[in-house]
């Protein structure tokens, strides 16, 4: 039997979809680098996102557990320790006193990416409080927040501006995997930092006034921990370096302040630190600093907790947050989180398992039904194969455009398969009827109905791209891809197969 052009197209597209999905990735061993902290030693040595680690210190790494175990037994006690990491892009040797600042995950089993609702993670819709943002304002906001989250150390994050059908602009923040505990705070607190003496502002957060912030080693540390009331309190301290202008301002203001009479080591007024208009700390100003252009300022604060460990951790987090705000400056608006979802990955796994089972069941029922009606294995098989080709090509397209398949997207694929079956039944019924007109003509008639149904589905799905800020975009997208693949590739090929069987 000669294979015609339309069937060839189907075969080629199926092959391309196979390449795009790349299911052989399931066979690879190792762990995948999801992100590398900027300017960390790991980054400087050349480790990058997307590389696959196959061995560490000569021990082969095939799963996430191997990776975790390797670093849990490595002894970092202040000294630099050598680590040899072999990846698919070469060998990297690290000397560091802590485990590398990278986030790894299992190698994806294929190029198909799943959405947050299946793979776990968090998602926030953010808008400005009490005002509507223009799209350029949202773009600015995206830049500032990206910077802030990166400085804070949240690496695996994607932030985009989005808009909905009514022209509202939002910022969408998506974080795969574990959700940082203070995400809500990091997103919604404006982070307006002000250091004041009396009513005069000395410096504010952001690069204009603050040249640099110490973030480790001698310049930033937890000072003391002590019992306080029923719990513990730990204090932190870190240095910041002011820009020349801010330092000059500091000199001008302190010039006119007298020495504190009761405590003559210090000036009579304190440096008050405000975060989002709330006083967080008051620092004494040493008398030697009066009128002096000084660039280094020491900032302190505290954290509390029921246990010493909790207080220590709280202090560390507060320090990190304050450092982040000082580096990145305040957000241009007060923000509000209008939607916040944190999804556990656990149920997504059982969902995926169920989807495969569902596929098998639908396959069986439909095959049986078709066989009862047409009583021919060849026809039944062609319908089923066409249906699965369509779903496979849709997955291939989704993988190719890096679309994250969420539950609505999968529903769209299944719904698309349903309409596909409908169209094929139509072609079949049209082709076995009215023997006095040519088969070609009969199939042409079937296509009139198929094309009509195609346009109605596209028309029905189109508004979903924008309605509800695109949360259901996946449903519309996969449905439209499915029916388009159907009308351009699988339906013509199916008609040809039927002609071949019929001849």
């Amino acid at each position: 039997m000669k294979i015609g052009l339309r069937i060839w197209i189907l075969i080629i597209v199926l092959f391309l979809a196979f390449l795009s999905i790349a299911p052989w990735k399931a066979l690879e061993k190792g762990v995948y680098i999801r992100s590398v902290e900027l300017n960390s030693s790991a980054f400087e040595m050349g480790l990058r996102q997307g590389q696959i680690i196959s061995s560490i210190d000569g021990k082969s790494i095939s799963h996430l557990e191997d990776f975790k175990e390797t670093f849990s037994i490595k002894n970092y006690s202040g000294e630099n320790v050598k680590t040899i990491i072999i990846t698919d892009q070469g060998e990297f040797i690290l000397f560091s006193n802590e485990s590398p600042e990278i986030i790894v995950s299992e190698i994806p089993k294929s190029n198909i990416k799943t959405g947050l609702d299946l793979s776990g993670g968090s998602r926030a819709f953010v808008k400005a409080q009490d005002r509507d943002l223009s799209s350029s304002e949202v773009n600015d906001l995206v830049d500032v927040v990206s910077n802030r989250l990166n400085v804070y150390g949240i690496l695996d994050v994607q932030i985009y501006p989005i808009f909905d059908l009514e022209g509202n602009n939002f910022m969408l923040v998506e974080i795969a995997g574990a959700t940082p505990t203070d995400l809500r705070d990091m997103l919604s607190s404006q982070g307006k930092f002000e250091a004041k003496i009396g009513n005069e502002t000395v410096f504010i957060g952001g690069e204009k006034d603050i040249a640099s912030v110490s973030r480790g080693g001698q310049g930033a540390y937890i000072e003391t921990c002590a019992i306080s009331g029923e719990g513990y309190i730990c204090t932190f301290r870190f240095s910041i370096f002011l820009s020349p202008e801010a330092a000059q301002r500091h000199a001008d203001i302190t010039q006119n302040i007298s020495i504190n009479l009761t405590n003559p080591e210090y000036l009579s007024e304190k440096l008050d630190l405000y975060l989002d208009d709330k006083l967080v700390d008051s620092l004494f100003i040493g008398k030697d600093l009066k009128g002096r252009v000084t660039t280094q300022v020491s900032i302190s604060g505290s954290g509390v907790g029921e246990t010493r460990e909790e207080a220590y951790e709280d202090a560390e987090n507060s320090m990190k947050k304050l450092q982040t705000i000082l580096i990145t400056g305040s957000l241009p608006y007060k923000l509000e989180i209008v939607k916040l979802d944190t999804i556990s990955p656990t149920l997504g796994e059982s969902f995926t398992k169920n989807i495969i089972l569902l596929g098998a069941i639908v396959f069986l029922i439909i095959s049986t039904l078709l066989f009862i009606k047409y009583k021919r294995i060849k026809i039944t098989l062609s319908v089923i194969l066409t249906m699965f080709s369509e779903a496979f090509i849709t997955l291939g397209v989704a993988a190719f455009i890096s679309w994250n398949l969420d539950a609505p997207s999968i529903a769209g694929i299944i719904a698309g398969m349903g309409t596909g079956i409908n169209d094929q039944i139509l072609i079949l019924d049209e082709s076995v009827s009215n023997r006095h007109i040519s088969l070609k003509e009969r199939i042409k008639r079937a296509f009139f109905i198929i094309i009509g149904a195609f346009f109605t589905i596209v028309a029905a799905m189109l508004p979903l791209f924008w309605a509800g800020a695109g949360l259901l975009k996946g449903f519309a997208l996969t449905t439209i891809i499915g029916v388009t693949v159907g009308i351009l590739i699988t339906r013509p090929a199916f008609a040809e197969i039927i002609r071949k069987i019929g001849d």
Partner: protein
Amino acid sequence: MEEEKKQAQNGPPKEKKKLFSNFNYDKYYRLFFFIPIIILLASLIYLGIFYFNTGDIIYKDVSLSGGTSITINGEVAQSQLEAPLKEKFPDVSFTQLEDITTRKQIALIIESSVSPEELQPKIESILGYSLNEENSSVEFTGASLSRNFYRQLVFALILSFILISIVILIMFRTFIPSLAVIFAIFADIAMPLALINIFEIKLSAAGIAAFLMLVGYSVDTDILLTSRALKSREGTLNSRIFRAFKTGSFMTLTALVAVLPAFFIVTGLPDSFRQIFLILALGLCADLINTWFTNASIIKEYCKRKGIN
């Protein structure tokens, strides 16, 4: 071998049992018209009363009305949580998710209109452990955002309906048959909507998307019927309608068996996913009567008056 098959294919058509062969369609088609009309009217009246009582045409879940949905993984006793939560949050509701094969509970979903900051600590204090992303999912939608979502989805539904009507009008370029198709689509939406309310199902954003899909799903049988009746000339009008019915009902049947397992079998997360398939299934059932009773009757009457046989 090839020769035999050809023989089977082209040989004399087997005398099939003529189902309904004694059935006088000409006599009853006007009556058929009224069966779906009565159901549609009942649905619309029900929806009207529903609107009058609740101020809305559907029950909305927290994604459309605003609030928090907390999914706790594993076997969590609803009985333990129900009373103390109801006391503090009167609108709290529960859904259990089961594994399809073992029938074991895999999660408990708790929904309320309050914020997670209020709901979560209360649940934690009852359960005696804290909820994190290992053992639970928390979804929160602000009230104003969900109102926007709802409004936009309803707008999208209306917009789709208009776009589809335009496509239909362009396809057939005749007013009455096009109107019949559009009417059938409208009935395909209204009937499941009433049923969803009777079942007291809270509609999610995905559920509204399913109604959009339904529009696309149900339309092909209507196009099939109309084009066979109007555009082809083989056999009598009745035989063309009947042939369209045979093809179309089989199409709907296969679509039904494709979506029904998705509703009954996939009980894992997310729940909104199942809703899509329930609505599609209800819509397909409604489509059977709306296409083959109402739409067919209108087409038949139209052809009769236009002298198309």
